[in-house]
């Protein structure tokens, strides 16, 4: 039953690792993992002893108190994470306690509960691998636990029925021949069957949209984890670089260029920030355009068309697989959207005024959506031409809103995104000088002018001039009393994308343009295997947009593009293909497993039932199934990338199988050479490992023409050689004696014997190199 304790410990450890990985909490992983590993030494070590009960009680109360504190602090927002933390600490406390069967049952149930919560949070491939490993370990643990409980139950019954003082021994396990491999086979059958049921439930169970109860379960991890932020605070030293964690995969196909690759970077807009607070230096979103203009469109599951593009119109097809679904903001290419369709029933809504795509559902997991964008608007087409005609509020009279809503009026609509109150005169002078240098002019009171685009381009050129401004992620906070944007424009002239975007917005507003900051991502690495862009946290970006006509906004990115590209795109090394392969497998995992939805389910069901449904007429079902298999080859039309991937995987599998086959053959030959085939399996393996030195000796002798006949015993062979040349073959005698000690004397090949074996083998090699006397 020592194996059971080991497996139970391993299961708990795996649960802790998986849960913290799903939560992406490395600190907790280190702390909890260290405490859990240490418990094995403390409790099960050579001088191990469980902690006293009162310590366990205090620790349990402390964990419960921490649960209450977390619930109070987070006000139930992070319920899943809170429960996960609670179960984690309880498990660690239990690991340090004296464990009976009841405690082991509690430990295993807590571990399973923790994995349930981790399943809600975890979307990565590593978590999937950990989950599968956990299930395998849990299977064996539960099987062994069942046997242990049966044994203990019988012993306990017998102990109770015995008179006081009577010795009661634990029942000896009655075991038949082949217990070990039959037990393993039973475990494999159980595991495969359960896996089959799991796959069937996964494929066939109907999916619905998340209910209202899930609102409180959803953790708000997005703000902590992604480089993207729904608010931008200037003037503080922050690490805007993010990390390498993948946020989404975007497959972009331009009808003119084809599949967009690494050189074709694109901006993916997330949120629009139109209000700047000069006191807190905070860019945020306000809704001052009034309720009539800020109605959210409810995107039906079958999609919604915003623009009726002619068939020949240039367009961009984007398929986005968003992994971090804890946030409500979705990301779309910074182009006029023509059509939105949701592949994962996530209740998408779209704000045509801000071109902001969001989900109202709190459903965790991956969201997949498809977008069609117009790369060039056809003449006479405006994005919001027929918006009010086709608008369909989400709920009657209760349109969705974004953030705080202030009552709209004509004045506020006129000054929307136009006012700038931070050293306006100084910034205006700078902007005017730039406009003058470009040979243009601008009326500050006019909302729209024909030269606005050229003015904005002049400002972009001014800011992108690397002789004046430099891009830096290491931006110290400005001196006290100095505004960050002013400090950037006139003093430091160095900053990151947020400062560039903010500065250009300030310059545009100072001359009467309507401008606002946009926060989102910039497409980074291109995965050549999957044919999509990988967007990571470090690809978070900010830029700005200016309104040139009513509801006609145009984006400008003032950040120097070369430096940003160098920052965002990882350098290609020899490991890049491997990384791309891993990321593509993770992408497939996210698309097919984590992002499995009702549409995919319908497709699977349709594929499965199609032969039966199409079997009508005179053909029987079996004939239809046979025909389906005949046509299967035609259906497997793979593109080049998929073919390469399939070939690579097949080669890997083939190499693995060949390696396995070679290992089995070598092992079998070794057993035959050592004549161990008649022994029991475990003894056979052990002796085969230990007696390898004898085969090495025989190989050495064979190289010099001394071959032992099959009929000759090792002892007779060694004696014959020693009689022939005693000095030369003395190591053979010594090695043969060691062989007999291990093979028939059941001595262990300890360190002393191993040293002797090495010495004799080296001596034999040296003596064989010498010429025979």
């Amino acid at each position, binding site marked *: 039953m020592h194996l059971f304790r080991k497996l139970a410990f391993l299961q708990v450890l795996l649960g802790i690792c998986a849960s913290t990985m799903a939560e992406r909490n490395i600190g907790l992983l280190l702390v909890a993992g260290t405490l859990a590993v240490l418990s094995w030494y403390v409790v099960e070590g050579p001088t191990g002893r469980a902690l006293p009960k009162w310590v366990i009680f205090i620790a349990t109360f402390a964990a419960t108190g921490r649960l209450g504190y977390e619930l109070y602090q987070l006000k139930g927002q992070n319920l899943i994470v809170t429960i996960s933390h609670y179960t984690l600490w309880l498990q660690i406390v239990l690991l340090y306690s004296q464990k009976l069967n009841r405690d082991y049952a509690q430990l295993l149930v807590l571990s399973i509960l923790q994995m*349930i919560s981790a399943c809600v949070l975890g979307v990565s491939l590593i978590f999937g691998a950990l989950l599968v490993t956990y299930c395998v370990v849990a299977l064996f643990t539960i099987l062994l636990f069942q046997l242990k409980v049966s044994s203990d139950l019988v012993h306990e019954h017998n102990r109770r*029925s015995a008179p006081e003082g009577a010795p009661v021994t634990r*029942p000896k*396990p009655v075991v038949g021949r082949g217990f070990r491999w039959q037990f393993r086979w039973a475990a494999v059958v159980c595991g495969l069957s359960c896996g089959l049921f799991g796959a069937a*439930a996964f494929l066939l169970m109907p999916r*619905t949209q998340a209910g209202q109860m899930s609102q409180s379960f959803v953790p708000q991890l997005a703000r902590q984890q992604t480089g993207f932020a729904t608010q931008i605070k200037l003037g503080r030293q922050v690490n805007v670089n993010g990390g390498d964690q993948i946020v989404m995969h975007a497959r972009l196909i331009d009808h003119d260029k084809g599949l967009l690759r690494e050189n074709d970077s694109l901006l993916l807009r997330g949120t629009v920030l139109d209000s700047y607070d000069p006191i807190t230096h905070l860019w945020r979103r306000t809704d001052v355009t009034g309720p009539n203009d800020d109605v959210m469109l409810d995107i039906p599951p079958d999609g919604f068309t915003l623009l009726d593009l002619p068939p020949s119109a240039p367009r961009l097809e984007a398929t986005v697989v968003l992994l971090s679904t804890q946030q409500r903001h979705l990301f779309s290419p910074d182009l006029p959207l023509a059509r939105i369709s949701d592949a994962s029933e996530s209740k998408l809504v779209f704000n045509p005024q801000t071109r902001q795509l969001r989900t109202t559902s709190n*459903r965790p997991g991956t969201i997949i959506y498809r977008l069609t964008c117009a790369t060039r608007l056809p003449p006479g087409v405006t994005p919001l031409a027929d918006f009010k005609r086709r608008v369909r509020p989400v709920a009657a009279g209760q349109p969705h809103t974004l953030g705080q809503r202030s009552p709209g009026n004509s004045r506020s609509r006129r000054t929307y995104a136009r006012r700038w109150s931070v050293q306006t005169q100084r910034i205006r002078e700078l902007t005017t000088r730039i406009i003058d240098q470009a040979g243009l002019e601008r009326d500050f009171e006019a909302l729209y002018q024909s030269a606005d685009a050229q003015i904005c381009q002049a400002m972009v050129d001014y800011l992108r001039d690397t002789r004046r401004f430099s891009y830096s992620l290491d931006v110290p906070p400005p001196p006290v009393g100095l505004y960050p944007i002013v400090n950037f424009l006139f003093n430091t002239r160095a900053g990151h994308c947020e400062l560039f975007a903010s500065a250009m917005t300030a310059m545009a507003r100072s001359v009467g343009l309507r401008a606002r900051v946009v926060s989102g991502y910039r497409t980074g690495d291109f995965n050549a295997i999957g044919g999509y862009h990988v967007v990571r946290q470090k690809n978070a970006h900010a830029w700005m947009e200016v309104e040139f006509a009513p509801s006609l906004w145009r984006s400008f990115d003032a950040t120097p593009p070369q430096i940003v590209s160098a920052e965002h795109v990882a350098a290609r090394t020899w490991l890049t293909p491997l990384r791309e392969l891993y990321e593509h497998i993770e992408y497939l995992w996210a698309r097919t497993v984590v992002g499995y939805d009702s549409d995919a389910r319908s497709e699977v069901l349709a594929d499965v039932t199609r032969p039966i449904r199409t079997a009508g007429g005179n053909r029987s079902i079996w004939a239809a199934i046979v025909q389906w298999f005949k046509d299967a080859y035609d259906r497997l039309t793979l593109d080049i990338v998929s073919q390469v991937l399939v070939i690579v995987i097949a080669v890997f599998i083939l190499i693995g199988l060949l390696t396995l086959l070679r290992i089995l053959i070598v092992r079998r030959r070794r057993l035959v050479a050592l004549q161990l085939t008649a022994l029991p399996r475990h003894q056979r393996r052990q002796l085969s490992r230990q007696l390898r030195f004898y085969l090495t000796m025989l190989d050495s002798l064979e190289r010099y023409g001394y071959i032992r006949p099959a009929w000759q015993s090792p002892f007779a062979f060694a004696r014959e050689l020693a009689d022939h040349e005693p000095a030369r073959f003395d190591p053979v005698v010594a090695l043969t004696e060691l062989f007999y000690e291990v093979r028939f004397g059941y001595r262990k090949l300890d360190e002393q014997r191993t040293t002797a074996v090495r010495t004799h083998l080296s001596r034999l090699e040296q003596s064989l190199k010498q010429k025979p006397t």
Partner: protein
Amino acid sequence: MLRNRPDMVTIQGGGGGGDRRCGFCMIRKRFTVGPGGLLYVVVTMLIYAAAQFTQANLLFWGFGLLIGGLVISVAMSWLTMRRIELQRVLPAHGVAGEAMMLRYQLINRKKWTPAFGLRISERWVDDRRRWWWWRRSRLPDSLNGRPYGWVLHLGANQTAQAEAPCWPTKRGHLHFHRVTVTTTFPFNVIGRVIEYDLPGRVLVYPHLWRIDRRVLHKLSAADPYGRKRLDRGGGHEEFYGLRQYRVGDSMKLIDWKRSARTGELVTRDLTQPSPPRLMVGLDLTGGPPADEKHVARNGGRRRRRSAARPQPDPIESAISLAASLVCDAYFHGYQIGLIVSGADAAAFPIHHSLPHRSRMLETLSLLNPAQPSPDAQTPAVPPTVIVRPAGHRGTMEVGRAVVFDTAHMDQYVSALQGGSEAVLSRTAAPRTRRQMMQLDESWN
């Protein structure tokens, strides 16, 4: 050493469910759900709820996994318990207060499927209830708990033997009704139970003590090692006389000097040994009134660990003392007889043999003090020792006999080291003085 009864019963469990009559035995099969199963269902429902609320795909997979576990539990336990044959191997006898090992031989007749984690236990059914699945197990008075055996693994076409110890507390017949075989493999979720009607019984001897050696020697009129020579030839002890050689005489016994002198072969004749005699009288007459007797008897019915230790029944103590005397005297080579007064039991003349001792022990085991003897028995040999329960006056004529009162039980007996097997398993008394001394040393 426990000996197996020759009348073992074999029952085979076939496929299907419900009641099934196999030969003369009823086989019942059912599924059970224990606390582990309920916990499993709760966790499954929890995962289902979490999957529905959160729509996390991995939870759907986990839910399917658990449902698969449930289905596999049912299927595997059903498959495991098919074609399992059972043989109960009862011991020849048991001793009250000592462990009695029940053995079960299980044969897996399936070709491929092994069985894991089989729990075997006895079941006594209260037949007063109508529906058999509502009939709870009714433990006999002479047991504190059901005996349980365990088989970890029983491979296909293999046989295994499980042991289940039980501790009978009372003498008499211990009846067995049914045997249940249960498995909860693989996940301890669903249990599959097969119940066999398998009647059987074991005779439980009274509790046996070790009689103090000095007390036993005092009872006999023999030398300290318990033997006396007879004035009759034909034995192996001392010199008795000379006689003419007869065919078959040992060469060592020929007196060669006399033979040379007389010209005929002359053989030395040796005396025969005469073991000491012990006539045990068990006098159960002259007891207290019936109500006091009832209270005294019920005091020792159920011995629970938590309850205070009740005082032993004097009658049972007397029977136990008599049985111990019989066993110990036989063990030391005495010729023993037994007569019981106050209960219906046959009188045993003085004799020394294993069947004789066994019959006396069986009589003492089945003795019913509530059923008095119809007429008083007069033994051919007066009793050497009379055993009386505490508080009984007794009506047996004492004469020269020694009276043992169970009120002073501690003066006569001590606990047997290593159980009664050392006494009961020996089938022959020591023949020589050296054997006797070795035996005494080994006992001390």
